């Protein structure tokens, strides 16, 4: 049984540990699952030119991002034997130490979950139009750029 149901990827503000715990518990009825792999992206307090990042303000090109995420999702189901997968990404302000990305992949055996999760995270970083504005303590900012 594969689940390809679409839900909204974007969440306003940080992804809470309660939300993550709730997502995990929702899978207890899916008893064909043998393993989950979870990736959590956390906002880091980088120091840039002696100033410390206190938060990232995320924005997106929503229509294009939804389309890209749909393609990533379809490719993951086509290439790996997955039971289900979920992607959540924050928009707006996420403070250092808070979670901004939650990728949750479930499969019958662990290898598919490990491999798919890794690939999905890399694709989100490289191909989805999301931008992070790094905010410093003094409210000035720089625009983040993902490293490959």
């Amino acid at each position: 049984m594969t689940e390809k149901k679409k839900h909204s990827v974007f969440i306003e503000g940080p992804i809470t540990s309660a939300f993550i715990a709730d997502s995990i518990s929702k899978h207890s009825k899916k008893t064909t699952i043998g393993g989950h792999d979870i990736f959590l992206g956390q906002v880091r307090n980088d120091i840039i030119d002696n100033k410390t990042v206190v938060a990232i303000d995320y924005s997106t090109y929503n229509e294009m991002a939804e389309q890209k995420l749909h393609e990533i999702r379809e490719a993951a189901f086509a290439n790996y034997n997955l039971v289900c997968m979920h992607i959540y990404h924050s928009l707006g302000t996420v403070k250092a130490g808070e979670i901004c990305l939650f990728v949750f992949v479930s499969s019958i055996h662990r290898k598919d979950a490990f491999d798919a999760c890794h690939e999905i995270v890399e694709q989100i970083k490289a191909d989805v139009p999301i931008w992070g504005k790094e905010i410093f303590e003094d409210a000035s900012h720089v625009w983040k750029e993902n490293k490959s």
Partner: protein
Amino acid sequence: MEINLLAFGQLAEITGKAELRILDVKNTNELNQKLIEQYPKLVAFNYLLAVNKKIVQGNTSLNDKDTVALLPPFSGG
């Protein structure tokens, strides 16, 4: 001939607006040229263009009512 231009991230700071109307550009080369004349700071920027949500490489012809997005380097996740 009118296209709808969307600017994101740092590029929206340079254009000062997230959405603009651009008149009389037949292709993406003409659009880039027009944008650089209007916003000289863009010369120093590395950005991609998406025409109707699809990233395009090289010169691409534009049609009336197309939506073109200026995409700075992505930084999600």
